[in-house]
């Protein structure tokens, strides 16, 4: 499962991309919980109530969205184009 980070989150995490196995519950919420366990900026930036979006296979999804081994996940701040 590939995970991409964009914008400010890419910079704060110091990471643009990584590969992980899907979390035990195979949901976005499970993945976020797992990332928060890394502590530091991960716990801080992905805390409940922080403004970020998760896309699975290039579409923004809610926390209960399912994940599979082949999913393309992206985590990013609110968009600011235009």
């Amino acid at each position, binding site marked *: 499962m590939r995970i*991409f980070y964009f914008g*400010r989150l890419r910079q704060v995490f110091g990471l643009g991309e990584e590969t992980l196995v899907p979390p035990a519950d195979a949901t976005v919420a499970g993945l976020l919980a797992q990332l928060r366990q890394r502590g530091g900026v991960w716990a801080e930036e992905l805390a409940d109530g922080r403004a970020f979006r998760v896309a699975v296979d*290039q579409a923004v999804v809610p926390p209960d969205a399912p994940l599979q081994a082949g999913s393309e996940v992206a985590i990013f*701040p*609110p968009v*600011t*184009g235009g």
Partner: protein
Amino acid sequence: MDTNISVAVQTTDFDIAQEYARLAGDAAIGAIVQFVGRVREQSEAGAVSQMTLEHYPGMTEKVLRDIGERALARWHLHRVRIVHRVGPLQPADQIVLVQVAAGHRFDAFEAAQAIMDFLKTEAPFWKQEATPEGARWVDAREHDERAVQRWSEMNDEP
């Protein structure tokens, strides 16, 4: 419907005259709106010497095309064209073009506005400004979130 929508994400500049020329001679078109967004030398944070646009390749094009399709489904339009630049840009540089061609002006104006509102809140672009105090990621703006509510029917995606 796809043949009426054209999107591009590119580092190179775009030419509004060339984009407009694609509509030349089409006498079914009575109204054309071209919107161009450009880099301003001032932002809320102060002077801007450079702006860098990052995006999510693949998803960006998908979202822009989807926004165009929703506009075509809601208004009577002949053609929608969206061009957005990425990479480093200077003040006064062009960032985005939305071009809408329709039979009548109400459709063209509303669709162009709605496309910009959706682009501002859905398309995965992120701006970083270079200012005298250093680089700064631009914050999403609440008024863009409010603006997009105007088109609530267009929010109902399949």
